[in-house]
């Protein structure tokens, strides 16, 4: 049987289910590597800035706070057992494996996922999506794929950056408040995590990025019924993204815990 990427590009014809959206994104990305001009770097870059770079201040603030919180909360309990020296381990492990990916993803859902759903939804209501189709420009290639690639690149970067900012938060509490030497904090925080701890977090991040952007685009492209529909789609995008992020997180954590 002959298989071509082209057949993925229009899988399902005019219907657009969530599964078909994923197939078509995959098709366009694979197709884009074989043919220049399909993936436009300037568009991907502008999306990187809009849905990634502009969310960094908020993600940093949250990560910094989480670093503070983790260090303060653990110091009370670990301090009772005289295990103060484990605080840096705890901060860096929980950030890398769990809290960094999760919190940055949730910030990005609220800031960028909702924006993408609202933007595509408004375009649908304005017949802009229709106009693209009539000009023989595939909306998935032109609108969805650049956003998809941008978030798949940016969410891991933002998560790593957020982890670093969180570690700074933990450091501030440990050194300024508990009098731990900076060198000790840095040594423990850097030495304890293995490469896998970082990777397991980044695997989660990649899955979260996929969830966020596909759900936002799917909700946006399927808007019906004017401004009210746009509002509903935006809400759904946020609610479903968070729901699926938490479910995916549970499954992945379970997988890493029991299987690997």
């Amino acid at each position, binding site marked *: 049987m002959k298989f071509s990427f082209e057949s993925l590009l229009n899988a399902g014809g005019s219907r657009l289910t969530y599964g078909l959206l994923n197939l078509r994104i995959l098709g366009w990305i694979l197709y884009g590597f074989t043919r220049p001009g399909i993936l436009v770097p300037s568009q991907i870059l502008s999306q990187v800035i809009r849905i990634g770079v502009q969310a960094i201040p908020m993600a940093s603030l949250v990560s910094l706070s989480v670093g503070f919180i983790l260090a303060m909360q653990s110091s009370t309990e670990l301090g009772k057992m005289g295990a103060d020296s484990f605080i840096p381990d705890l901060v860096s492990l929980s950030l890398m494996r769990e809290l960094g990916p999760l919190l940055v993803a949730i910030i990005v859902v609220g800031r960028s996922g909702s924006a993408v759903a609202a933007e595509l939804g408004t375009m649908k209501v304005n017949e802009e999506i229709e*106009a693209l189709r009539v000009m023989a420009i595939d909306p998935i290639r032109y609108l969805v794929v650049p956003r998809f690639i941008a978030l798949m690149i940016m969410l891991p970067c933002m998560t790593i950056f957020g982890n670093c900012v969180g570690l700074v938060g933990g450091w501030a509490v440990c050194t300024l408040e508990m009098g731990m030497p900076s060198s000790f904090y840095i040594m423990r925080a850097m030495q304890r995590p293995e490469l896998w701890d970082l990777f397991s977090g980044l695997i989660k991040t990649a899955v979260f990025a996929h969830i966020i952007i596909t759900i936002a685009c799917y909700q946006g492209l399927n808007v019906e019924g004017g401004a009210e529909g746009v509002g509903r789609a935006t809400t759904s995008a946020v609610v479903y993204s968070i729901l699926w992020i938490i479910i995916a997180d549970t499954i992945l954590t379970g997988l890493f815990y029991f299987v690997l």
Partner: protein
Amino acid sequence: MSPTPKKTNPSSDVILEVKDLVQSYNGRAVLNGLNFKVRKGETFVIMGGSGCGKTTLLRILIGAQKPTSGSVHLFGEDITKASSQELDRIRLRFGMNFQFGALFQSMTVGENIALPLQEHSQVDPSLIEMIVKMKLELVGLTGFENFKPSELSGGMRKRVGLARALALDPELLFSDEPTSGLDPVMTAVVDQLTLDSTRKIGVTAVVVSHDMTSCFRIATHMLMLGNGPRQGEIIAEGTPDEIRANPDPFLQQFVRGEADGPIAFRLSQDDYLKHLLQEG
């Protein structure tokens, strides 16, 4: 006489052929078994009252919507059965001017017009910029390249939509009420643009309109869709002269723009009086 007439085969210059087209929404037939043909070089005007299904018809003709039943042959291919790839190929040959513009709000006027050129032609950017300027000049909007659609008036948006539809120099232009919301001078300008495109460049135009002056100015062929009790059927079709001469009261009311007549938008004045007195 030669037994084989060669080039005057009438079916060869048919660009668009609609057969038994039906579109119903929730069991209500908005278009009910339409049949018509558009030939190369014609300016085919579709008239009809508000809500009679003109936009719906255009959406079906451009393949944006699948009809409930019937077929639409565009450039000889049935677009109701075409795959997306085939549709895209056909779509490069026509332009569509939407009723409400459908401009990309996030882009400037210039970028809107440049987009089809960037996507579908290998022309270099400086030439694209020039073509954009030319198209804007055509619709009387020189100097507005860097405006966002939200900074334009409704009529200006319509003209940008028209410029965008003409960007790739299509063989066939669909235009949904290109002159509604324009002042008389601009209406004349847009009509002249349609005339120039069709008569001089040879573009075929399918124009929806209910501005009678404008209709008779540009049309070479007219089609009137019915609404109310005659929803979904073709009331009359023919050249402008045939339409003027057609005695159908429904058509004549529309052409003359009279409030009373068979078009049941409201009760007639007598019925209205009776209706009021009965209630009282």
